[in-house]
């Protein structure tokens, strides 16, 4: 499976072993981001890195796990509840004058969004490459939900991200 080297700048301690071992010079760049056009995926840099800052990531991902319909239905119901809470907290924060409550409500809507993202990830939207994600984008392309919907974004995503499942 084709892989690419990725450097985590938070872990990188500039030991430069990756520069010494890279056969194509992909690791030696002005912005410290490994050049994916040069990387051949050999993994020598990741093995040599003393700070464990380089990992090899796959270019293709396996299909995501199938989810049971009953679980997805309950997860979706909970997701709708979270969406209402997020909207309500956001709206309350916007109109709130008390500085403490403003920050607390802001924290609430951000928190609820994060929880909801996690919930929906497990409810069939883990991978951007999944059939579900593609189905959603295609539906928006075919029937834009409103006249000013950013259809172009959906179109570009479909072009850029390959689907890794057969529907």
């Amino acid at each position, binding site marked *: 499976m084709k892989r690419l080297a990725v450097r985590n700048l938070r872990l990188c301690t500039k030991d430069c072993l990756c520069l010494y071992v890279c056969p194509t010079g992909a690791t030696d760049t002005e912005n410290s981001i490994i050049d994916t056009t040069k990387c051949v995926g050999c993994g020598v840099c990741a093995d040599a890195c003393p700070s464990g800052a380089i990992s090899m990531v796959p270019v293709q991902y396996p299909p995501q796990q199938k989810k049971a319909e009953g*679980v997805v239905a309950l997860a979706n119901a909970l997701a709708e509840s979270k969406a*209402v809470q997020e*909207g309500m907290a956001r709206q309350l924060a916007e109109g709130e004058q008390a500085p403490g409550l*403003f920050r607390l409500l802001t924290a609430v809507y*951000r928190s*609820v969004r994060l*929880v909801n993202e996690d919930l929906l990830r497990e409810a069939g939207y883990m991978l951007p490459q999944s059939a579900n994600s593609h189905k959603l984008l295609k539906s928006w392309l075919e029937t834009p939900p409103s006249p000013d919907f*950013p259809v172009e974004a*959906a179109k570009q995503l479909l072009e850029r991200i390959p689907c890794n499942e057969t529907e």
Partner: protein
Amino acid sequence: MSKWICGICGYVYDEEKEGVPFRALPEDWVCPLCGAGKRLFSPQEGQQPAPPSASGPISLQGEWTELSAGALSAVCSNLARGCEKQYQEQEAALFRELAGFLAAAAPPVPDGSVDRLLELIRQDLSQGYPALTAAAQAEGDRGTQRICVWGEKVTRMLEALLERYRREGEAFLRDTNVWVCSVCGFVYVGDSAPQLCPVCKVPDWKFERVEGRR
């Protein structure tokens, strides 16, 4: 309103957040991060586009999906994170654009109040999570059980914090900070972020401080 970037360390001076236009800063002002002088800053190129459609709620027509605009916004921001983790920055930006549009398209909530918010949170704790956990256990779906474990803890904390605010009012949050774990959503009130997130165990730098209104 625009952003100015430090040419040495990349610090971002956000005029909107700071409340003072960059050009109005005194000439001896220096970068708060690295001490570089004002002249080493330059305006951010390709300023971020305005969030799509600030013109108010949009009506979404048709039976195009079973999820509402608000939930679909979270689907898209989740997929944006999925792209980020795969180092697909442009794809992430496109999903964020969709998420922003859908968030603006969600209809306003009519009867919003802290009490109503607490009611909904309690409903998740008494019904939503127990039902989903039971179904996930029956299916042996440990991924869903994990988000129930995390999500329920985070939600309990939200309930406790809102209740405490109702008892103590502004005094509860005076002279202290509110933090959000950027991974699981755990909210913490205190001067500095916890060393490890109590819920998902990520380190303190994964916490974001909630800024006050300018």
